[in-house]
């Protein structure tokens, strides 16, 4: 790419070099309370359920999923899944016996990792509650007393199942059905951890609730399951972050997130995905939005080897609104296959998808999106904007939009642009004194600006920082 001389490229394909720009690539030496063997068997599924003392219906649900999983083919779109070594993976890794209620209860090595990530600090300063998952289990959780007093429930999914079995049974698997896709089915068979949230009618949770997911073991499988129920007129902002050590062999993260947004409720779900570049991140996220409810996905994908994720909104009630703001950055050896789905079922529903992707150093960024307006969704409106920026000749960007319109009297706008960082832009900024790297970073930040300004400040800062770290990896 060098057109201005004096550029030193990083050595290709060495984990060591890559991990130098990845701040969270260390691993903790801990003794696990329990580790399953490698590979997935029916016995593992029954053992897992027994260890968790689950109700019979959940055990049967898992076994049914396991049976479907064995028959179902992998998705025939997206990235290269043939690289996943399914039989090498540990499907259940329990780090410690009990979820801590204070950080003191968390073993030192693990606590230090989360201090490095910044979770306890954020919790003190700006969060309404936090959940921390380490490999397969939630190892720490908190919720401000004031929120608990209002009836807000924020538990690990396993705790949720134990304490609110009826509520879980009522909604679990209703938004993402058991046989939805192979990865969601896998999650249904071996799910462990994740968050269970219930916001009572009319309660507005001012501070975000945050979950942080850390993979520590090599060849780990992390299959958290999250269920959020926002009752009528309530409001909540849920945030998740993630990271993993710099191993050479891959881990698998296959989560399922189901959200129910009841009448007039507002839910925002922000993800800052910063997996190490060996993680396969194959996630199913979907929200059901009732009358005048609002669902907003903010999805930042910066890490992982392959991400396939298309947060969806099913707009089921009149005037329901769905929105996805997506930022993807694909560097060396990365494929970000991301996007959104908006399904309009009811009249006057509105949706918006804004996607910004950047590819560099041979990375590949794919936008894959769907807008479907069903019969009966009169007056529905949808707007899709997807912009791609390609930083060099070795990188790639693809756009796969699908629009299915089955109703008249609707409006759908679609804009897509693909641009390359031009030599003239770089020259112009360099002629004002910026190095090539600084000039490129400035052009990238400018490109992301329209989305960044819509993201809550703290998370925009975090995403900007990660983008900058990624950019540092591209030029010396």
């Amino acid at each position, binding site marked *: 790419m060098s057109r201005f001389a004096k550029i030193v490229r990083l050595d290709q394909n060495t984990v060591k070099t890559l991990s130098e720009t990845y701040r969270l690539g260390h691993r903790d030496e801990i003794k696990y309370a329990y580790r399953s063997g490698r590979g997935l068997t029916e016995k593992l599924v029954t053992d897992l359920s027994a260890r968790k003392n689950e109700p019979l219906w959940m055990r049967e649900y898992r076994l049914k999923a396991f049976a479907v999983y064995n028959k179902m083919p992998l998705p025939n779109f997206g990235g290269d899944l043939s690289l996943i070594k399914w039989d090498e993976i540990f499907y259940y890794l329990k780090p410690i016996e009990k979820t801590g209620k204070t950080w003191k209860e968390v073993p030192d090595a693990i606590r230090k990792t989360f201090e490095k990530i910044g979770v306890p600090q954020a919790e003190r300063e700006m969060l309404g509650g936090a959940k921390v998952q380490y490999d397969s289990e939630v190892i720490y959780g908190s919720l401000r007393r004031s929120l608990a007093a209002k009836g807000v429930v924020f538990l690990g999914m396993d705790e949720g199942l134990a304490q609110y079995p009826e509520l879980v049974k009522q909604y679990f698997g209703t938004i993402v059905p058991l046989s939805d896709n192979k990865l969601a089915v896998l999650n249904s068979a071996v799910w462990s951890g994740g968050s269970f949230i219930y916001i009572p009618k009319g309660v507005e949770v001012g501070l975000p609730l945050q979950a942080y997911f850390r993979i520590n073991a090599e060849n780990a499988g992390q299959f958290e399951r999250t269920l959020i129920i926002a009752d009528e007129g309530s409001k909540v902002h849920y945030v998740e972050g993630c990271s993993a050590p710099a191993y050479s062999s891959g881990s698998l993260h296959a989560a399922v997130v189901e959200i129910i947004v009841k009448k007039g409720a507002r839910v925002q779900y922000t993800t800052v995905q910063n997996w190490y570049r060996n993680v396969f991140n194959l996630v199913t996220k979907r929200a059901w939005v009732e009358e005048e409810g609002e669902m907003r996905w903010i999805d930042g994908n910066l890490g992982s080897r392959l991400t396939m994720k298309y947060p969806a909104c099913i707009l089921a009630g009149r005037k329901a609104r769905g929105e996805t703001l997506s930022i993807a950055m694909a560097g060396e050896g990365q494929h970000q296959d991301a996007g959104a789905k908006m399904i309009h079922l009811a009249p006057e529903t509105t949706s918006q998808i804004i996607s910004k992707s950047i590819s560099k150093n041979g990375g590949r960024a794919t936008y894959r999106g769907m807008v479907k307006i069903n019969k009966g969704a009169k007056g529905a409106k949808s707007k899709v904007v997807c912009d791609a920026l390609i930083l060099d000749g070795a990188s790639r960007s693809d756009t796969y939009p699908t629009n299915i319109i089955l109703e008249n009297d609707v409006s759908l706008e679609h804009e897509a642009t693909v641009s390359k960082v031009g030599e003239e*832009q770089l020259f112009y900024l360099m002629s*004002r004194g*910026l190095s090539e790297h600084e000039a490129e970073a400035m052009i990238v930040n400018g490109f992301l600006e329209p989305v960044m300004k819509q993201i809550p400040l703290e998370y925009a800062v975090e995403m900007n920082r990660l983008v900058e770290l990624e950019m540092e990896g591209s030029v010396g």
Partner: protein
Amino acid sequence: MALLVKGLKVKIGNKEVLGGVSLAVASGEVVALMGPNGSGKSTLALALMGHPSYEITDGSVDLDGGDMMTATPDERSRAGLFLAVQYPVSIPGVSVREALLASLRARGESVSALEVKKRIEAEAAELAIDEELLKRSLNEGFSGGEKKKMEILQMRILAPKYAILDETDSGLDIDALKIVATGAAFMAKKKQTGILVITHYQRLLKYLKPDRVLVMKQGRIAKEGGLELVVELEKSGYKQYE
């Protein structure tokens, strides 16, 4: 102290565009470079700033005793060279404030964002630039005149030792022209900036009085003189230089 160019030969692809240009601009001096279209004026400007499409095959460029031949554009900028380009490109999502703050910091100046904002606003008032433009993406949707004024604003903030103004007068109405020319003249007089001003027309030089005038013809300096050369060109045109 001077910007010294000696025997500069420049190729674009396989074509030689400059066939050995020599010139000098001293501190505080205003030198006009005139000549017909295609005579190589803009090529000279871009080659001096280190544009990668222009390959220097022979000659030397020296800024206050420092050799610029192998320097990248940003190194030339930080050494004190500035080019007000003929066609400023737009940088979506980046305001002139952000760009200038980064430029100043790249020079090692420890300025605050607020200080820079104030300096920019003061310069904008001086140059009659609408404040609204300061917040917008740099050069995006700007008129020709607005772009040129914004180049001069950047020059004034960066306070270079030597500035090349490449047809900064084109696209300006007479009021804007006066403002831009006075702004540049101020830099030469008060800040001792050496200015190489590239133009086709006499009108800019009424307000930005050059100490010397050079005329280019087919990639070489064909004539050198004083203001009388400008008057002569205005009368008889560039025919003899084509």
